[in-house]
């Protein structure tokens, strides 16, 4: 599947490339700045379809920023400027013709702290569906059941769909957020440190969920927990100070990284 893997070369970062038939999302010389302060610098990488790609790196390296650029959440912030291109299935996401709300439906996002709406569990999952065309109640019920099942939450909540979502535990709330995102049937799922606020068991459940979702979706996971990236992802990209340092198969990055910077970060050495 890997079209090429550049060997260690002092002038170029070792970056995996995927052919267009295998890559779902491609980022091309993308730079971003908050009120003039540079956050991402000339990032170029492509994300393979139906795989889990992890972005790792120290705090402030830009991984969350990059994630939020993919679903154009930065549009909400006026002081953000960017250049370069991000293409989803061949379409430039910043193209004026591109419908932003449709983009955000196709590219779902799960945040670090679970943020269910102050509504019932049913209504939370139905929120995205209600934004689209009207559909008969039975169809909506079916989709909600499917989404909750895919998120491994159905059995736990099927008797109390109409209770408030805020009564669920942290791990359950996060899975509810995932279900809510799945309900609108996205192509890509962005996960911004989805388990960092959860206990270890919930974390493992979320990781298992991520593995299972791979067959339907392309997943991009941002995490500061390297062991999690190693456990869950197929490809890992190491970002540092807004730049892409190394990007390759997870096994290779964690057993024999190409660059010393990557090695130092992964093994916990003073950089």
């Amino acid at each position: 599947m890997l079209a090429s893997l550049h060997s260690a070369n002092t002038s170029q970062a070792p970056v995996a490339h995927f052919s267009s038939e295998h890559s779902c999302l491609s980022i091309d010389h993308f730079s971003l700045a908050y009120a003039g302060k540079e956050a991402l610098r000339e990032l170029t990488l492509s994300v393979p379809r139906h795989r889990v790609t992890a972005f790792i790196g120290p705090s402030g390296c830009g991984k969350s920023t990059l994630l939020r650029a993919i679903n154009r959440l930065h549009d909400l912030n006026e002081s953000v400027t960017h250049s370069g291109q991000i293409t989803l299935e061949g379409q430039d996401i910043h193209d004026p013709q591109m419908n932003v709300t449709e983009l955000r439906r196709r590219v779902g996002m799960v945040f670090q702290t679970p943020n269910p709406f102050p509504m019932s569990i049913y209504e939370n999952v139905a929120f995205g569906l209600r934004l689209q065309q009207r559909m008969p109640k039975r169809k909506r019920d079916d989709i909600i059941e499917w989404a909750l099942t895919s998120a491994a939450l159905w059995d736990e909540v099927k008797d109390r769909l109409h209770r408030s979502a805020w009564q669920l535990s942290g791990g359950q709330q996060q899975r509810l957020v995932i279900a809510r995102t799945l309900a609108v049937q996205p192509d890509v799922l962005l996960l911004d440190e989805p388990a960092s606020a959860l206990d270890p068991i919930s974390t493992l459940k979320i990781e298992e969920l991520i593995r299972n979702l791979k067959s339907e979706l392309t997943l991009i996971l941002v995490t500061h927990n390297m062991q999690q990236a190693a456990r869950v992802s197929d490809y890992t990209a190491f970002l540092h100070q807004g730049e892409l340092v190394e990007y390759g198969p997870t096994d290779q990055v964690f057993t024999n990284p190409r660059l010393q910077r990557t090695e130092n970060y992964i093994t916990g050495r003073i950089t």
Partner: protein
Amino acid sequence: MDITSDSHSQHISRQFNQELEELKTHLMAMGGLVEKQVQDAVFALLEGDTRLAEQVRDNDRQVNDLQLQIDDECTRVLARRQPAASDLRLVLAVIRATSDLERIGDEASKIARNALLLSESSSTIRGLVEVRHISEHVRKMLRDALTAFARFDTDLAMQVVREDELVDDEYSSAMRSLMTFMMEDSRSITSVLSIMWVLRALERVGDHADNLAEYVVYLVKGLDIRHSDTDELEPQVPKKS
């Protein structure tokens, strides 16, 4: 990307640094002990020193204990630290190396046992020259392999790998000449057989030293060169410029 021998000292966790350093130190200590075992066993054989041979056999217990201790330390590091990249390779290399070192210890024991057997024989023992020759060869290999491990020196390690072929050749020719001996003089069969066991043990020591060198390459470069032909190896393991 090659790692250097002191890259294991820069972790943010000082305790982790210490643990890895101790692993290396203990491994070197085991290597040194095993080296001495081989040296003593061969000396006991060549000089007929039965007391020394007994000592070598007794000390094997120490070698085994060291293996258990180091393996235990490695297990603990794996469980607690989830090491990655070069740290992981270091731990794996150490685990494999203790196994080979322990086997070398066993071979030294075998040599010592044969030394005891031969000391009872009164007639001239044939093949001692070959023994001396090959033993010096493999002892140097072992010493170099351990040095390469300590210094993370892949050039030295590759040298050891290449040496093993020469040792194998030497061994084959020594065996051939000893066979001839046996056929000529049927009274010498017992002692020649003992010598052949000794030679075989020494050849095995050489193989184990060769393994140790391969682990060094794995550790430093991340390349697993076990079971590869030496011809294929050259381009993959470039010399340091």
